[in-house]
């Protein structure tokens, strides 16, 4: 079966900039960051949002880098809202003040997601590579609550904080969040570089999963706990992005449109830009979006696997990163011929973070 573009993408991840004051070692941004001079301007983003809405996109996630690094963030938010999109700001809180947030709400912002690095301040700031970040997050969360803006706390989980999952849910509740994501690090971008410093042990992962179940029961009706599972220790791969080119589009700061944020790590894929094509052309016709739609690209063991319509062979980027072949089964799958390598990679240990840093003015 060859893949046909589905007519209805749900989401648009708008990476407004790669600039960010934090240096989180698990950042999903690529190792080669787009420069400020190459960033799309306000008017182009406004056009992208209108094209996205016409294509059926319902929600846009204003992200980065740190979106607050864009001085025109209010105008960008207003443009997304005016296009009819549900607008979600994904921020580290650093660079975003209560006054600016009020202006965003006025412009039509629907929801805010604030990341936290840990429930312990010193550890949180160490992980972020930015002293004072934790305090800024508390302040911004309080501002969101004052503005009646719904708040999600995104807690990124890895070896340094995985034993404090309960404390992080407590912190999310104290901050006034209605939803918390317990998001295990996914190993792409900077996180892949830092894998040995971030990877928890299998028993830590299992303990955290049990804890999340207990926390859901304990906090039922008070806060929604969504978990993003770690996949190196699971027997089957994740249904990455709900299938390649099925649900969402990711626009980079410079305007390249990707099926997912790590897609540029796969060599040979041809990405089209919003500077030269409409979003509809890109969604339906761009070589990168069509590369892994359907099942015609699959090899064994995926071709004959009854789960192929459920998990789509896992993640293409991870297949390339771990097996050297983007059309191979995701090696986290126990049926993959490369699966034994995954356990060895998960067992590697290093204690030093390689922080990502890019100057705000760059």
């Amino acid at each position, binding site marked *: 079966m060859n893949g046909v573009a589905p007519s*209805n993408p749900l989401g648009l991840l708008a990476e407004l900039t790669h600039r960010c004051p934090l240096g989180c070692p698990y950042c999903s941004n690529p190792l080669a960051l787009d420069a400020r001079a190459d960033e799309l301007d306000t008017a182009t983003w406004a056009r992208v949002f209108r094209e996205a809405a016409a294509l*059926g996109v*319902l*929600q846009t996630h204003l992200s980065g880098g740190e979106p607050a690094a864009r001085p025109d963030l209010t105008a960008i938010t207003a443009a997304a809202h005016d296009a009819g999109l549900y607008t*979600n700001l994904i921020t580290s809180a650093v660079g975003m003040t209560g006054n600016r947030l009020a202006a965003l709400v006025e412009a039509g912002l*629907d929801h805010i997601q604030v990341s936290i690095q840990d429930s312990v301040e010193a550890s949180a700031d160490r992980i972020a590579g930015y002293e004072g970040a934790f305090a800024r997050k508390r302040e911004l969360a309080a501002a969101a609550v004052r503005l009646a803006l*719904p708040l*999600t706390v995104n807690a990124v989980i890895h070896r340094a904080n995985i034993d404090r999952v309960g404390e992080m849910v407590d912190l999310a509740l104290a901050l006034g969040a209605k*939803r918390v994501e317990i998001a295990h690090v996914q190993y792409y971008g900077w996180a892949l570089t830092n894998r040995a410093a971030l990877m928890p042990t299998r028993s830590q992962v299992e303990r955290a999963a049990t804890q999340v179940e207990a926390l859901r029961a304990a906090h039922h*009706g008070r806060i929604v706990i969504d978990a993003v599972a770690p996949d190196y220790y699971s027997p089957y791969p994740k249904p990455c992005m709900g299938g390649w080119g099925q649900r969402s589009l990711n626009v980079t700061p410079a305007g390249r449109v990707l099926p997912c944020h790590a897609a540029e790590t796969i060599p040979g894929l041809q990405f089209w830009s919003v500077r030269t094509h409409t979003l509809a052309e890109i969604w339906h016709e761009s070589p990168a979006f069509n590369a892994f739609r359907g099942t015609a690209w699959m090899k064994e063991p995926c071709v004959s696997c009854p789960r192929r319509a459920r998990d789509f062979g896992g993640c293409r980027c991870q297949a390339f990163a771990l097996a050297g072949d983007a059309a191979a089964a995701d090696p986290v799958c126990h049926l993959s011929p490369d699966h034994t390598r995954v356990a060895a990679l998960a067992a590697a240990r290093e204690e030093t973070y390689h922080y990502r840093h890019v100057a705000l003015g760059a």
Partner: protein
Amino acid sequence: MSGETPAIALDSRPALPHGVRLTQSEAHGGWVLLAPERVFKADPIAVEIIRRCTGAATLAEIVDDLARAYAAPRERVLADTTALLAGLADKKLLELSL
């Protein structure tokens, strides 16, 4: 925890909270409920119930109105409406203020 359906007081006034809204999408074949980083398809019955959750009407009034509009038995409407609203409230997609 999730096995029981919690009762909703008949005099509570259900409303969609900030950040949750019902909207029509041709591309997605009808009505959808947009929420923080989630999208739910809403079937025609759900749409009729959710549209009435404005924070003005009580649950009892909403049920009366639906029973009248669809000439349906009140008990049945109450059960269906309560089940839907309780599910939404569990997901923090509905506020039940008194």
